[in-house]
């Protein structure tokens, strides 16, 4: 038997809430939402960790401008602190090299990262999930028993369809969902035609405009928090804080 999963429960025991930011499609702003949400929660006084689980294309370190300072080794790996966040990513091990991971590699890497990272006490651990419903999603759901999902989508029939598929999978796996956020909206005063369809399944948490200033703020946590993107995302935070998914919103 593989003993590694047994230690993961202990590693996550001091974390109050574990929130996976997902959405199925690539390029819809999951990593930006995960990174800036982590910043917002941290600035509200919460103890926050950010774990980038997009093993093939990690990007949260670039979004936030996390320096290359490696984790400290002490009976495990202590995530470096940056902008008030404890941060962990595969980039600490693979650098900027491309990684040809396949299924079992991903399962092993997710298990290993969860087993060796010492988060200690946190109010929120935000996980930035990769696109798709593949190995990482299934492994995280299998290994991290008490987690909640936050779904990101964009005003597009394709993205909404993929989000619905993910919600259906999460329902089958009995994973609670906090709600969904619509990102990259061209007109935040008009709900997208796809939004009500998703709202029948999970709560609607808000809309984020397509923010052209986000690109120039990348790599600078202080500038990111001042963007329209951040201000609109912050409006969804009270609902996230108030939700008690694990008991009341279980699908």
């Amino acid at each position, binding site marked *: *038997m*593989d*003993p*590694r*999963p*047994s*230690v993961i429960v*202990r590693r996550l025991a001091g974390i109050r809430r574990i929130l996976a930011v997902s959405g199925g499609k690539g390029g819809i702003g999951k990593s930006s939402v995960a990174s800036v949400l982590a910043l917002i929660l941290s600035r509200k006084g919460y103890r926050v960790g950010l774990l980038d689980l997009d093993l093939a294309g990690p990007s949260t370190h670039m979004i936030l401008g996390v320096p290359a300072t490696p984790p400290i*080794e002490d*009976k*495990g*790996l202590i995530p470096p602190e940056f902008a008030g966040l404890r941060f962990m990513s*595969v980039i*600490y*091990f*693979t*650098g900027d*090299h*491309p*990684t*040809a*991971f*396949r299924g*079992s*590699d*991903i399962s*092993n*890497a997710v298990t*290993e*990262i969860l*087993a*060796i990272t010492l988060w200690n006490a946190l109010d929120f651990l935000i996980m930035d999930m990769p696109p798709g419903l593949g190995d990482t999603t299934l492994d995280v759901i299998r290994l991290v028993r008490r987690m909640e999902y936050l779904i990101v989508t964009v005003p597009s029939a394709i993205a909404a369809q993929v989000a619905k598929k993910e919600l259906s999978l999460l329902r089958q796996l009995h994973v609670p969902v906090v709600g969904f956020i619509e990102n990259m909206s061209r007109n935040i005063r008009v709900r997208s035609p796809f939004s009500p369809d998703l709202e029948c399944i999970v709560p609607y948490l808000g809309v984020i405009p397509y923010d052209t200033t986000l690109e120039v703020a990348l790599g600078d946590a202080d500038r990111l928090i001042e963007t329209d993107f951040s201000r609109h995302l912050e409006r969804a935070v009270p609902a996230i804080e108030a939700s008690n998914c694990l008991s009341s919103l279980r699908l």
Partner: protein
Amino acid sequence: MHEWALAESIAITVRKEAFQHNLKRIARVNLQIGELQQIDLEVFGFALESVLQSQDWGIELETVVVETVRSALQCRNCGHRWLYNDGASGLEEKQTEAIHFLPEAAHAYLKCPACGSPDFAILQGRGVWIESIEGEG
């Protein structure tokens, strides 16, 4: 994998199995560790002793036998097979340390010695496996 994480995971798993099978004394745990994990057995032994002493585990664990499983890698492009140590000699220290913590990092630093492809399979020599637990109630 980090030696301390390995030690903790072994202690937790053995305790769980001992409880499920009503074992009070564990005479022997047979453990297989992949070469890619690059576990320092001295550090692991110290970590396991410390973990067992730090909490009241309620079990006696006498012997842990570790078998290191040699690595075997195979290129998915040309089919060439090689050993980790054959390709690891040119790695920098920080790269081998990264592979110690996360063996899949080998995919970032190793390439097929025959064709240069980074697309290879780790056939054996990664991961940790408890082969058997021997004890009595």
